[in-house]
């Protein structure tokens, strides 16, 4: 038996292929949207995995440090270390900043970390980790900074000594790691004018500057300008201890918040990007509907264009099933061309996106299934039209 669909497609040639390619661009966009979502998830996971921590100790009652502001005293780690099961600890601060570099503004998330403690980047692409406690930096490759670059933040200038990768904030900003002491000053210490103005206010307040007690004002002023806060303490749990139990202990005895890796992943990956995920899902739905409409329209037009032939085929005894399968195969062919070209273009253009686009085979597989399903459904309109054709139409009036 002749494959009618194949012959008809060959007969339509260019028009059919071009429609398939156009559809491919749409499917490419769809795959990319899915990749953007996967990228968001993967960024969040990378941020957590590459920190080398098992436990995040944060301000009580907050989802910090990534999802909500959290502040702790920077000596909390001492009391944590006294707990059984706490291995290494690392004070960390996170702050998003605009950095001017090489005449360009780069948004980065500045992470203050202790050298060689949880929180510091685990893998470097090049260079070396931060070893001094001051004025060194490790930058994510996406910042565009190079080894040896001098980066000026608010107060100090830092030398980039190493480059890491896949370290971005949940907002997609690449990270810049600096020593935590410097970061505390960058984050919490105000500029000189603000300090002077504050001091004057304090001096005028009789309760903070009681006459005859000179030590009080000095103490208050010193307290005001010191920078004794961090956003979180990252903990590496010692061998043989369960992070979940340790989190419970920290919460109960230290009046702090504590999250395990799984809980942190849930906060960062599930809760924070939930809205983005829904946003992307809406796009996917719309793109699917548009693709379906295009396929349906093209197949319908192709069917309308051969009403006479269909009437003749019916008159000479062609089964409805044969006609329906011809039309469905034509639709599936469009879906197939669309999927294949979509996969190709998505793979080509994904690296050029500013944020991470992660194309996973599983998504491609689902897209393929959806493309085939949508094509099949879209062909129903054409099939219905063909089945309604009256074979008597082949015989003139």
């Amino acid at each position, binding site marked *: 038996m002749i494959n009618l669909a194949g012959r008809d497609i060959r*007969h*339509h040639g260019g028009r059919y292929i071009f429609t398939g390619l156009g559809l491919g661009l749409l499917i490419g966009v769809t795959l990319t949207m899915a990749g953007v979502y996967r990228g968001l998830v993967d960024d969040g996971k990378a941020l957590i995995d590459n920190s080398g921590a098992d436990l995040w100790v944060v301000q009580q009652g907050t989802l910090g440090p990534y999802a909500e502001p959290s502040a702790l005293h920077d000596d909390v780690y001492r009391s944590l270390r006294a707990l059984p099961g706490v291995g290494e600890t690392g004070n960390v601060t996170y702050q998003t900043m605009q950095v001017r570099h090489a005449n360009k503004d780069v948004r980065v998330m500045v992470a203050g970390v202790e050298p060689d403690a949880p929180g510091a980047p685990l893998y470097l692409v090049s260079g070396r980790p931060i070893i001094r406690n001051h004025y060194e930096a490790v930058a994510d490759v996406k910042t565009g900074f190079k080894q040896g670059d001098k980066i000026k933040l608010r107060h100090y200038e830092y030398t980039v000594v190493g480059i890491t990768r896949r370290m971005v904030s949940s907002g997609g900003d690449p990270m810049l790691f600096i020593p935590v002491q410097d970061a505390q000053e960058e984050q919490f210490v105000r500029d000189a004018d603000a300090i002077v103005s504050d001091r004057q206010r304090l001096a005028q307040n009789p309760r903070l500057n009681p006459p005859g007690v000179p030590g009080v004002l000095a103490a208050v002023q010193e307290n005001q300008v010191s920078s004794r806060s961090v956003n979180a303490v990252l903990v590496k749990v010692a061998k043989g201890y369960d992070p979940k139990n340790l989190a419970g202990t920290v919460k109960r005895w230290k009046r702090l918040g504590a999250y395990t890796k799984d809980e942190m992943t849930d906060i960062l990956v599930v809760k924070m990007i939930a809205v983005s995920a829904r946003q992307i899902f809406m796009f996917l739905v719309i793109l699917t509907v548009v693709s379906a409409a295009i396929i349906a329209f093209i197949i319908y037009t192709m069917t309308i264009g*051969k009403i006479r032939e269909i009437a003749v085929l019916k008159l000479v*005894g062609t*089964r409805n099933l044969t006609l329906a399968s011809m039309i469905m195969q034509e639709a599936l062919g469009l879906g197939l061309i669309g999927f294949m070209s979509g996969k190709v273009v998505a793979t080509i253009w994904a690296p050029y996106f500013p944020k991470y686009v992660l194309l996973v085979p599983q998504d491609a597989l689902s897209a393929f299934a959806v493309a085939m399903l949508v094509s099949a459904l879209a062909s129903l309109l054409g099939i219905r039209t063909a089945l309604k054709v009256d074979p008597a139409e082949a*015989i*003139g009036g």
Partner: protein
Amino acid sequence: MTLTQTQTPAILVEGLMKRYGTGGTAVDALKGVDMAVNPGEVVGLIGPSGSGKSTLLKALGAVIEPTGGKITLDGNPVYDHGWKIKDLRALRRDRIGFVFQAPYLIPFLNATDNVALIPMLAGMPDAGARQRALGLLQVLDVGHRAAAQVSELSGGEQQRVSIARALANHPPIILADEPTAPLDSQRALAVMRILNGLAKQYQTAIIVVTHDEKIIPTFKRIYHIRDGKTYEEAGEGRDIG
């Protein structure tokens, strides 16, 4: 020539009725048509516009349902106040060949496959179907164009391919609806010559609906249809070689 009583007619129509629609707008297109065509015979069906020619052809082709009377093909009742055959599609495919005013070839198939498709639909293996198609194209003198696409064929060649298609399942009956209308008189006569030859060769019963003055003299027997009724008359039966 009248019907030979000893022979079973290929097509026997008795008191056939067809009413389109119902109530006040109903049209009685056939009001008791009688007709008999023997194997190997080519008869003309002529009549003024709106007289019911196409309606009769569609009823014989089992694509519209009559509203009364009988159709018997090769002695088998097909319609007798209701269809007597379940699979009308198979009836059309296996026992009736259709030739239309225009060739209506399938544009995405070449000449051979336009013909071969018909036996393939009936379940014949591809190679056999194509071989049969080639043979028919040769009979119709378009064998040399067997591989051509429809768009590459002339009007006359297309018409001959479409006749080959009508013959593809060796049907005992061919229904032709104004097959010569778009052709000049030479080509029109050529088509009639082909149909007459096929009728003789394959013992096919052929009904040709026509308005065409050029071919009317070729029929030995003619049915006039007027106001939904048929009147049989002898034709000139002019020899066209």
